[in-house]
């Protein structure tokens, strides 16, 4: 994993992507007990240019030049299947910008904050997202002031209130 993170950091240093943050299940595992997942979701801020369909072309080109294989929607980087996702709304954009930097062995990486993960899960709204929000409320230290500000900023306060009974301990 250290090597995978090193590759991600170099993509930023070399200007292939503007910034990245780990989201999804792997980010949740940072805060919670481990649970099964099959990939590492990496949200990236990247120049869109004129052709949005080709958004990942420079990124994939760089990675394949380095010998990493594309398998379906994943890029196998040093043994870990990585799925790159462009930030797709102001919430995911903010989650990447405000991600926290952590140490993983000798390498640093960026992980979305718990409060942003909760807001993204609420926005996505699948049953497994709601179940995971419950786990966050139960196990992780969630800063409710920060969460409420994020929900308000991204128009999710009503959705939270409507579903709050699902997350109660």
């Amino acid at each position, binding site marked *: 994993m250290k090597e995978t993170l090193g590759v991600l950091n170099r993509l930023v240093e070399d200007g292939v992507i503007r910034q990245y943050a780990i989201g999804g299940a*792997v980010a949740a*595992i940072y805060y919670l*007990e*481990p649970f*099964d997942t*099959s990939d590492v979701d990496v949200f990236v801020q990247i120049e869109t240019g004129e052709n949005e369909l080709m958004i990942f072309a420079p990124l994939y080109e760089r990675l394949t030049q380095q010998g990493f294989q594309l398998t379906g929607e994943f890029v196998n980087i040093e043994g870990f299947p990585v799925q790159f996702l462009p930030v797709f709304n102001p919430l995911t954009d903010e989650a990447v910008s405000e991600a926290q930097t952590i140490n993983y062995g000798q390498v640093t990486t960026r992980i979305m904050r718990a409060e942003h993960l909760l807001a993204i899960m609420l926005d996505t709204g699948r049953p497994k997202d709601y179940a995971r929000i419950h786990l966050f409320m139960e196990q992780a230290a969630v800063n409710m002031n920060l969460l409420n500000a994020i929900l308000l900023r991204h128009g999710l306060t009503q959705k939270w209130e409507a579903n709050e009974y699902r997350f109660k301990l």
Partner: protein
Amino acid sequence: MKKYPDITELLKNKEAHRRTLAALPFEKKIEIVFNKMKARSEFIKTGRVVSSPTEARIESVDNDDVTDE
């Protein structure tokens, strides 16, 4: 009336174990999750069960602690 055992203590221990897992260093948690994934992939490819000492230890403690994503 049928008498059922009190499993309060069992549940309490299970919860404590989940909290212990949650408190593991991130590197350790990633190792657990992806070793399991690699073992599953290997099993699908070869039909042979591959298990690392870490997985064996974790699974012996509580098989459903690593829940499905």
